[in-house]
């Protein structure tokens, strides 16, 4: 790989599209492969129509150790040699590109549909063959006593739709394949619309449990392109809201993990405490999930001094109440035996496939955007990265508990020292022909919003990558060898978003 094959970019710093290296396909593939081999990770790989007959492939890579991002491009026709033959991490992205843009990666090992929809980002002159949305070639395991179990899209619980196909031998799972796309709403197309006022509402609805995370990343990208500088107070309020969202979801997850091992006491307590976190967000923003709080240029709601003292009191009480409940859960031997050794993901699997967030941190891969690509308030107030070693359900639960404690401390620290000033500044027109990568550490992991503008300052491409996009395959990787009856527990320990994946 030549040194100038990747253009260095930083989180929420724009680069001119003209400065991005434009490589030959072979060189592009070699750059991806050698970068990933030397420790880089694919944040996103997506297609943008270049003209009526050509597609621009755009890759964004992350070097987590040095905190830099790299980007590179290639122009391809409707058929090109698959990148995933030399770089496994590109596999899922190429399935997405094939579906969104209609390009065919020749030699792709498993070119199955991803979300099952007609192309919406294809060069206009390409002939596209319509596909049957029900046509999904599941892998089949052959053997006399092997049976298939199909679950979904309508599940037993109050959860989103997805289809799981198990191949099992008795109780033992041999393979799990996940078919998604049921929640596909065409989010990226809506974000690329002309109205910023409606786009921000769509950003709030990418994943209903990650409103703050996605809206912060969306606004981070728009603000960078508009050269709008948020005030320190707005950045701090965003940080507080993001950590409250993390608290609510992590505490809720600990509750659902409790109920999945039939431990109702801590499930009930965690359930109530999760509600308290949502109510804290509602006190600030008027909505339990923080909708309406974050807008390009800052936040719509300030935290006045009277509210600060109320929030401090309530978070302190939460801290007092949540600890004994967590001890109840983690020190219970019957819970330990159910969490231990179930659904293991290894650090090796994680590095090869590019998992992020809680899943990566629970197998000692210390990825955390707040730490590696610090932005906003996290440049001034560091949160220690919480990791665990075993990569199983227990590790994913304990990482959540560590993060709960650290987020509470962070919120109390920030409330005690809220910077003075306005909370909302003007966010004007976008700069033309630029690209920005906005990363955010949502409670599930790395959220990426990548925005490219055209010469007329309109949004040419708005790419969204939810952490679930990377991590759904971790669930498939963790299941073989486990009992099928452990699937609900295992699934809950990942708690991935269907809506965030399906867009």
């Amino acid at each position, binding site marked *: 790989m030549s040194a100038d094959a990747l253009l260095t970019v930083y989180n929420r710093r724009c680069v001119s599209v003209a400065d991005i290296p434009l490589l030959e396909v072979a060189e592009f593939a070699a750059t991806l492969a050698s970068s990933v081999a030397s420790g880089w990770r694919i944040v996103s790989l997506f297609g943008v129509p270049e003209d009526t007959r050509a597609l621009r492939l755009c890759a964004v890579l992350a070097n987590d150790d040095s905190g830099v991002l790299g980007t590179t491009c290639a122009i391809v026709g409707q058929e090109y040699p698959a990148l995933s033959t030399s770089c496994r991490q590109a596999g899922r992205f190429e399935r997405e590109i094939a579906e969104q843009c209609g390009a065919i990666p020749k030699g792709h090992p498993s070119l199955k549909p991803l979300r099952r929809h007609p192309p919406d980002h294809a060069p206009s002159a390409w002939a596209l063959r319509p596909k049957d949305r029900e046509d999904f070639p599941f892998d089949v395991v052959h053997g006399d006593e092997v049976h298939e179990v199909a679950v979904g899209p309508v599940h037993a619980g109050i959860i989103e*739709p997805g289809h799981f196909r198990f191949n099992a031998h008795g109780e033992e799972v041999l393979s799990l394949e996940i078919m998604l796309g049921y929640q596909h709403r065409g989010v990226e197309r809506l974000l690329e619309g002309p109205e910023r006022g409606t786009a921000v509402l769509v950003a709030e609805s990418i994943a209903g449990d990650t409103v703050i995370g996605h809206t912060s990343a969306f606004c981070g990208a728009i603000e960078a392109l508009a050269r709008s500088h948020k005030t320190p107070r707005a950045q701090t309020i965003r940080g507080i809201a993001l950590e409250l969202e993390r608290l609510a979801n992590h505490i809720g997850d600990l509750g659902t993990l409790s109920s999945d091992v039939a431990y109702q006491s801590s499930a009930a307590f965690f359930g109530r405490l999760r509600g308290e976190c949502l109510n804290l967000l509602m006190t600030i923003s008027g909505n339990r999930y923080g909708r309406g709080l974050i807008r390009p240029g800052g936040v719509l709601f300030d935290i006045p001094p009277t509210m600060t003292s109320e929030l401090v009191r309530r978070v302190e009480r939460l801290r007092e109440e949540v600890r004994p409940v967590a001890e109840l859960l983690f020190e219970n031997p019957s819970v330990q035996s159910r969490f231990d050794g179930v659904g293991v993901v290894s650090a090796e699997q994680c590095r090869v496939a590019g998992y992020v967030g809680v899943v990566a941190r629970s197998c000692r891969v210390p990825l955390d955007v707040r730490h590696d690509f610090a932005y906003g308030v996290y440049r001034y107030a560091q949160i220690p990265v919480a990791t665990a070693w075993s990569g199983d359900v227990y590790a994913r639960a304990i990482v959540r508990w560590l993060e709960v404690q650290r987020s509470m401390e962070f919120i109390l620290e920030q409330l005690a020292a809220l910077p003075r000033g306005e909370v909302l500044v003007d966010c004007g027109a976008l700069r033309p022909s630029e690209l920005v990568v906005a990363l955010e550490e949502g409670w599930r992991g790395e959220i990426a919003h990548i925005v490219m503008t055209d010469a007329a300052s309109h949004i040419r491409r708005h790419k969204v990558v939810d952490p679930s996009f990377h991590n759904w395959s971790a669930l498939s990787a963790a299941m073989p060898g486990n009992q099928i009856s452990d699937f609900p527990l295992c699934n809950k320990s990942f708690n991935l978003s269907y809506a965030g994946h399906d867009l």
Partner: protein
Amino acid sequence: MDDVAPCHIVVAEISVFDYLRARFGPRFARASLVPSDSGLPQRFRGRPAIAQPQADVATEGGTPVGEAAPEHSHRNLPVIDLGRSVFAPEETERLKGPTAFTQDYRMATSSRNALLTSGGEIELAHALDRKMRRLLGRSLRFRLVAAGSCGGCEAELAALGNVVFDMARFGIQFVASPRHADGIVIAGAVSENMRDALERTYEAVPDPRIVVAVGACAISGGVFAGSERVLGGVPPSIPVDLWVPGCPPHPLTVLDGLLRLLGRVDHLSKTVPRGARDDTSATPP
């Protein structure tokens, strides 16, 4: 005994008595359904209404709520469609009327048209007919179908089962199979990919069945209304009995609607909650 020592330490810290104290103490109280006592914060964005109390609004308290349909309203106010509203702070600005969000969480209606309002008053949901209620008895079981949603409505519906909202105390529950259900609750703008599954789930529920549309997406498509990939809400082939606006609706909004459907909250109740009219602080600073 040595094996279980850690457990004993915990038990010493949190005894059964601590459980009971926590369970019945004031901090474990269930959510109150009395609107003035629901504990919703000042910034909560509930039913939008006229910001300044006007003379005619004050006297209207004497007539049944919603008697005057919005089309017949003489007030020159913009019509608000609660079914399209995502209750975003900037929506009141866009309406350019003297409207603001109140703290009233009660918004569920029996018809789509009832969600249209010009003054802010709406005709809340009325009870199912006697025959249907007799048939249901004291239980109501739903199968949830999320179809092109963001997951927000599901999270609030799941919260209805927790100890605070405790929907099961009214005999209302979510069940695993449509075959066990009295009806379905639909969330989401109904994506193309879920259309078939939604229709088949609906068909699988034995007749007579109840349908509840929860959230702006299920009612009107919500923020996804313009997308080619969604139908823009529950298709006409599935008749809806209860419309619950919100993005997502507060669990109390859903619970209130369901209880009205069951005739367990008086639908003629015309009391406007204290502080709902004169509180306009929900608009951003």
